[in-house]
């Protein structure tokens, strides 16, 4: 797989632009998809958001500064798109944040593989109880194994604040699972 630097050089040449962009999509699509999917739960919503993310990337990749990491930049766009999507849902349906979370929980429970007795699904339920920003921090650390330094660039927040946020998120998740899950496997 080509390095980001080479792919960016190819992207700047009209004759290799589409090929370079396809390579960038193939390289990052799964990671970005799962980052988005865990935020919005529904596949169709995740698909819409991811496509919009890549179209924005196409439109603005020419302005991307190579001293920043492409991976960080892509995550920032994806995160912002997720937050915008969730915000639009609240406005469109004139519903509260709690109702959005209930909607997400219902979608989670509608997943074909969902099993409330399994700890990994109970963890997903617990994550949905977190405030949106805390949820992003937990997901980036737990699922994407993102170092705090990099997360700080994605979310434009200090590492200390992110560590504190992660710590709070963990405590809330543990409390939720302990109170609701008695027969976990």
């Amino acid at each position, binding site marked *: 797989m080509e390095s980001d630097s080479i792919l960016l050089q190819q992207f700047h040449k009209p004759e290799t632009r*589409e090929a370079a*962009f*396809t390579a960038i*999509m*193939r390289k990052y*699509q*799964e990671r970005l*998809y799962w980052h988005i*999917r865990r935020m919005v739960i529904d*596949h169709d919503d995740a*698909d819409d958001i*991811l*496509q*919009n993310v*890549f*179209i924005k990337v*196409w439109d603005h990749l020419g302005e991307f500064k190579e001293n920043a990491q492409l991976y960080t930049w892509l995550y920032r766009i994806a995160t912002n798109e997720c937050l915008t999507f969730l915000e639009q849902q609240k406005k469109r349906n004139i519903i509260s944040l709690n109702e959005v979370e209930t909607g997400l929980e219902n979608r989670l429970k509608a*997943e*074909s*593989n*969902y099993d409330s007795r*399994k*700890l*990994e*699904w109970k*963890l*997903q339920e617990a994550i949905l109880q977190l405030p949106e920003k805390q949820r992003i921090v937990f997901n980036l*650390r*737990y*699922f994407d*194994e993102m170092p705090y330094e990099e997360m700080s660039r994605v979310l434009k927040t200090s590492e200390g604040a992110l560590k504190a946020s992660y*710590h709070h998120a*963990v*405590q809330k998740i*543990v409390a939720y699972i302990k109170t609701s899950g008695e027969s976990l496997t």
Partner: protein
Amino acid sequence: MSVNKNILKELEELVPGFGWPEKHADFEVPEGYFTELPDTVLNRINGHEREELPVPLSRENAFDTPAGYFENLPLRILNKINEENKKTPLVRLPRSRRKWPNWAAAAAIAAFVAAGGMLWLIPPRLQNNPQASISFNQQLASVSNQAIEQYLSTQINSSNMNEVYKNLSDQDLQDALTSGLSTSAIKEYLQNNEPDSSSF
């Protein structure tokens, strides 16, 4: 997919003995989704399905105008105004219809006022002096009736009208009212020109 061991170790340090799941929940993804996604995105980028993209709100006006529209607009409006002015016929408003009895009534009132005005014009110091009064009346006779009526119609007001009435005898009033004027004409005039009650 299994959870990274370093992450599990970190969590174990944060919450000892909790027993975090070692694998991720397996969400379902349609088969072949990741294979097809790049082509789907490129199709949208190349315009095949680009119209489905939500249009970002912009300060720029989304509507289009014909080329040169605003440059030519003032001239087009001025031309239109000029054309309209040429087309518009001059319409004379109908003059208000005045009936002859109104004129007659007005003339009678003017004559009535003029008769009273003669007396009002005589200065009070002359009114009790017969010789001086005769001399004044002779001078006044040389002034035309038209000039007197003109003067009285512009100078007399409701306050000095009372002075005119005081100096008129019943006979003067009777003569003034019956000088070629019908009762119906007088009534109509008074209906159309309701007098100010403060004058009486």
